[in-house]
């Protein structure tokens, strides 16, 4: 790892469901397991609620990486929200990849309410991988760019 990458602190947003992963992350806290500070958690009732547009918005707002995490299959509080989400992500990932959006920056996990230790690993691993990929400059560059305005100026 070169120095730039080491100095780079990725900003990561975690989209998690209330019943499994949010509770699992609570357990990480209760267990006092330490992990990287780079991840900020947004609580949703269910992975089924996580709109794919919100992931794009996180990138547009400057996220370098994204975690999406919910209940393991068959554990969903609402029985099938995670199954719906899974199918949505299959299609979404395929499309993003075809567009050349870096799907390696979106990490999907199942973390149950009992997997406090797994949550810490998930965060640390994601941070390490995104750090290795570097900042998502190519996306940030187009995020606030208005061609005519910028191209026509000195």
């Amino acid at each position, binding site marked *: 790892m070169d120095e730039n990458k080491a100095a780079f602190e990725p900003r990561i947003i975690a989209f998690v469901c209330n019943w499994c992963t949010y509770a699992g992350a609570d357990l990480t806290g209760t267990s006092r397991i330490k992990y990287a500070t780079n991840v900020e958690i947004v609580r949703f009732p269910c992975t089924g609620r996580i709109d794919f547009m919100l992931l794009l918005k996180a990138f547009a707002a400057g996220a370098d990486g994204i975690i999406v995490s919910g209940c393991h299959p068959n554990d969903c509080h609402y029985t099938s929200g995670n199954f719906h989400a*899974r*199918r949505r992500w299959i299609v979404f990932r395929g*499309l993003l*990849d075809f*567009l050349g959006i*870096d799907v390696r920056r979106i990490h999907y996990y199942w973390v149950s309410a009992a997997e406090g230790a797994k949550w810490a690993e998930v965060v640390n691993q994601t941070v390490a991988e995104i750090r290795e990929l570097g900042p998502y400059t190519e996306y940030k560059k*187009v995020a606030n760019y208005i061609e005519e305005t910028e191209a026509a100026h000195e």
Partner: protein
Amino acid sequence: MNNWNKQIADMLADGTVALVIGYEEGSTPQKTRPLFCHDAVAAERLVMDGRCTHNLAVYLTKKELLPAEGRIGVVATVNVLKSALQLMQENQIPEGRFLLMAVGPEGKLTELPDAESLRQYIAAHPLPDNPEVAALIEKIDAMSREERWAYWQECLSKCVKCYACRAACPLCYCTRCIVEDNRPQWILPWASTLPNIEWQINRVMHMAGRCTGCGACYAACPLHLPIHLLTKKLTQEINREFGTERPAKGNVLSTFSPDDKENFIH
């Protein structure tokens, strides 16, 4: 006057249908355009041949254009029929409101009064896959991720957000499109690279399992941006992951299988 023109003129004259939507000669000999026939005289202008590429199903959800009473005839291509069938499944076409008609090779008019007859006709008239589209998709697939991003960034930066792709699509019938929702402003409303990419991602995701592959979006684009590759690619992915059968009720993305792949979820 073809025999089928005469048949349609008679239908208009005797009130079997109040309106017929079809095609007429366009501005240049190379193209045709949609035609609304309100009377038997207009029916003489109807044509049907390989130049008829507009997806007329787009008009079936435009209530303001359609007479309040009576049936509406549509001289349809297979693409129109496919879209019409999808519209039926999505509760957008009242039963019996439209009389879809196909013109056979010898000018034979086939009436397709219900969903089942549509299904049979479509099954009997499969449309060949466009090898150029498949080749383009393969070309893009073969690129590195960075090249793909550069390709689409360059391509979609040109988009002017005229929404012709949306307007020409029979399945883009939302009363309020997501781009018109500003609470929150899901997609920035001006034309620049990211908002353009986001718009296409939304358009394509919303087509998941619904797109019939007619290519009207591409045909309508005044800048000739190859946005149909996105919907086609999505359809390929869906077919590969979930099979070519669509759920009888609901949509590919509002249903699931417990066995859907999850090799990307850890």
